């Protein structure tokens, strides 16, 4: 199967799931209603330069509009498929080192002021200013500056040409109201009143934020691209994923982004609920530390050997593991990138499940159980290592227990370190661990792999290549893919790099969940994008005939 047809199949699936919504969308009487979105965990911030949490990003995307939106094919290379938002038009300079964005003159802030080129510059400057110390700053590192050509034209200037140049400015730089932020104390942006009461340019206005309870948004009826169908979006904050799901099952909430296992089965049986698959970009893996955790200069005594890692991978029935945790709703990844990005596919050769072969391989490598305790040894070193797993993730804990038992079958002794999240992060940062079950939620652009798997991310203490996989071959292949100007050539280079990765087995890819959202049947869901299910919220609707009490509040403000 080719890349394109995989993407197309995923797309068809998503479309099929939301078909009802598309049909109903133009019918009269579907304006109005409230959607309660159940989330686990509090959003951190609602204003882009400060946001790290997914919930914060989801809400900010309703409040703020970007220059252009990534299309349904999720292509982040070049500008193909991007749809105009605040920018109605864009022009590349002849040398491709700058892009001029021409703003839609109808666009305005929720306080009525028009959106101007200086707002684009403000958005970029706050991201870049060291005083703000934005966690998002690396996302715009390729942009040198943003300048104002005239009141409706902003120009982004780049250090060099690259395939995700357009994506970087159009998607990652979110314009912010310069007239409100001109005099803000940037070092204390977090404490500024604007941050608690954001005024945006998007389809929804901010109403209130009650800590640990909810964030309420209401439709902006004057939004320049047409008001959203819903009157109101309430984000209901649960302290943990389990509670978040029970709120949906109890009818107290209308939507949750992910359901799995027993709770999914329950939702499927409930006549008031609908479930929808929409892919996803997360992938989970068992990452090995290739370096000795106590003395980083030396390779890891057990896991430093590529052949041992390959044998361990052969000992794992990854399909059964995915099946146990996610039933049919997860697949084993092809490489260090999810299927939905459209690059990794079945043409990448995998290490098969064959525990008999794994045993023979370990025998021939000199790992034998000489003392009869069920654990192999070599030169007095037992085939033993610990696997860290965060106490906060039930899915990963479950996988850990499955892996432990399967590796025991080939004579490898795994101890489970169920760590509190912060302790785990501290150990990852100091590289003080043997192995960890982790997962990534990558950006739509494949170049984000640099931070997680190349030498660049291994060398600094705070980089995210925690296992110190340093392969000059892999690095070079990624570098040339990132630098390529030709989309199909870039894809081929990425694929070659993924193959190198799979062969070296610095991590065993475990599963990429095919996410399933749960929602009240009365909601017509539109466009649950794999990387951002919330992208279509402004087009979600509730038919008048199916409304319940909370849909009939209308646009009026809360009684105080």
């Amino acid at each position, binding site marked *: 199967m080719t890349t394109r047809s995989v993407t197309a199949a995923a797309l068809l699936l998503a479309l099929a799931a939301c078909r009802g919504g598309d049909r109903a969308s133009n019918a009269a009487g579907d304006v109005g209603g409230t959607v309660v979105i159940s989330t686990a965990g509090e959003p951190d911030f609602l204003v882009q330069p400060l946001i790290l949490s997914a919930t914060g990003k989801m809400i900010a995307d309703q409040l703020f509009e970007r220059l252009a939106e990534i299309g349904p094919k999720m292509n982040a290379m070049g500008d193909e498929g991007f749809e105009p938002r605040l920018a109605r038009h864009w022009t590349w300079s002849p040398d491709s080192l700058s892009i001029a964005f021409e703003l839609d003159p109808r666009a305005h802030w929720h306080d009525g002021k028009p959106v101007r080129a200086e707002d684009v510059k403000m958005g970029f400057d706050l991201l870049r200013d060291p005083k703000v110390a934005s966690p998002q700053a690396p996302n715009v590192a390729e942009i040198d500056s943003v300048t104002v050509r005239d009141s409706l034209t902003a120009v982004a200037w780049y250090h060099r040409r690259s395939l995700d140049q357009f994506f970087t400015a159009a998607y990652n730089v979110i314009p912010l109201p310069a007239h409100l932020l001109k005099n803000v104390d940037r070092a204390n942006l977090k404490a500024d009143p604007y941050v608690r009461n954001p005024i945006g340019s998007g389809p929804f206005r901010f109403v209130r934020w009650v800590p640990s309870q909810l964030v309420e948004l209401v439709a902006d009826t004057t939004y320049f691209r047409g008001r959203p169908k819903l009157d109101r979006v309430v984000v209901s904050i649960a302290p943990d994923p389990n509670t978040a799901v029970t709120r949906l099952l109890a009818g107290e909430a209308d939507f949750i982004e992910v359901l799995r296992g027993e709770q999914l089965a329950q939702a499927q049986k409930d006549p008031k609920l609908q479930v929808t698959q929409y892919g996803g970009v997360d992938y989970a893996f068992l990452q090995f530390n290739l370096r000795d955790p106590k003395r980083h200069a030396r390779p890891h005594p057990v896991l430093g050997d590529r052949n041992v890692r390959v044998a361990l991978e052969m000992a794992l029935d990854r399909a059964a593991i995915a099946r146990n945790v996610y039933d049919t709703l997860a697949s084993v990844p092809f490489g260090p990138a999810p299927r939905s990005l459209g690059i990794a596919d079945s043409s990448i050769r995998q290490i098969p499940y064959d525990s008999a072969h794994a045993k023979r391989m370990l025998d021939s490598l000199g790992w034998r159980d000489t003392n009869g305790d069920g654990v192999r040894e070599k030169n007095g070193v037992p085939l033993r290592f610990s696997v860290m797993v965060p106490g906060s993730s039930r899915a990963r804990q479950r996988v850990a227990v499955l892996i432990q038992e399967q590796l025991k079958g080939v004579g490898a002794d795994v101890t489970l370190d169920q*760590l509190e999240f912060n302790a785990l992060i501290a*150990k990852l940062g100091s590289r003080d661990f043997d192995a960890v079950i982790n997962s990534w939620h990558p950006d739509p652009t494949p170049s984000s792999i640099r931070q997680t798997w190349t030498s660049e991310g291994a060398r600094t203490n705070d980089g995210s290549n925690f296992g110190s996989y340093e392969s000059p071959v892999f690095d070079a292949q990624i570098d040339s893919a990132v630098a390529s100007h030709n989309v199909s050539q870039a894809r081929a280079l990425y694929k070659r790099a993924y193959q190198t990765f799979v062969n070296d087995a610095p991590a065993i890819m475990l599963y990429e969940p095919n996410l399933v959202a749960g929602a009240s049947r009365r909601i017509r869901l539109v466009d649950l994008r794999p990387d951002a299910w919330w992208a279509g919220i402004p087009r979600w609707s509730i038919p008048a005939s199916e409304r319940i009490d909370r849909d009939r509040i209308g646009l009026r403000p809360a009684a105080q």
Partner: protein
Amino acid sequence: MSVGPWRTALRALRRDRVALGAAGVIVVFALAALLAPAIAPYSPNAQPDIVGMATLPPSAAHPFGTDVFSRDVLSRVIYGARVSLGVAVLSIALSMTIGTAYGAIAGYAGGATETIMMRLIDALLAIPRVLLLILALALWGSVGLPTLVLMLGLTGWFGTSRLVRERVRALSRGEFAFAARALGASHARVLWRHVLPNALTPVIVAATLGIGNVIVLEASLSYLGIGVRPPNASWGNIIQDGAEAIASGWWIALFPGLAILVTVVAFNLLGDALRDALDPRSPHA
């Protein structure tokens, strides 16, 4: 002189049918824990078929059903008794030892030493134990069984030290200790031979009631996700495994929960009976 009350107490207990029943239940659970490998029908950690045999309801082959990993719940509850009872007994032994020593020293020393020692206890008692444990367990990344026992023991002795200190203070200022000192006995000897044995009766009662408490506490910690480390089975741990499958696999959480309830009720009944027997003024008798 310390033999008298014990003998009467034992005699009273022997006539108390409720106490005997409770003791019987505890013995049964303790035996199950000790003989786990002999009575458990399966290995507690074996995963025979993670796709086909996960979350099976109770049947003849698996009287308590199987869990989400296809493991036999009955075997895990039996092995879980080992961990839950073991952790509780060991940590209570530790906290009673520390509490008795601390309380005895404070009570016998008196004066400023006693005041400072007891103020510290007041402060430590003011922190909810669950929060203190969450805080203390955050110090360790991963919690092995020895660490868990240590932590439960180290956070459980404050109340005991208060009890002991009161008794020791009363006893060491009593005529008997005074006489012993006058006869030339050393402080340590007076404390060890004469004061402590008489101060121990409330400790025994507190320990018995405390075991039930610790079993519940360990289960609660597991519920919060910071208890016994998998794949080890403890009762709290099995409930946690079952909590997410409660709608489709109620048996996973139900049976270990019942085990906790029965055991804790038994320990509390025995503790009540012991207190009544050791303290003849008590209205329960």
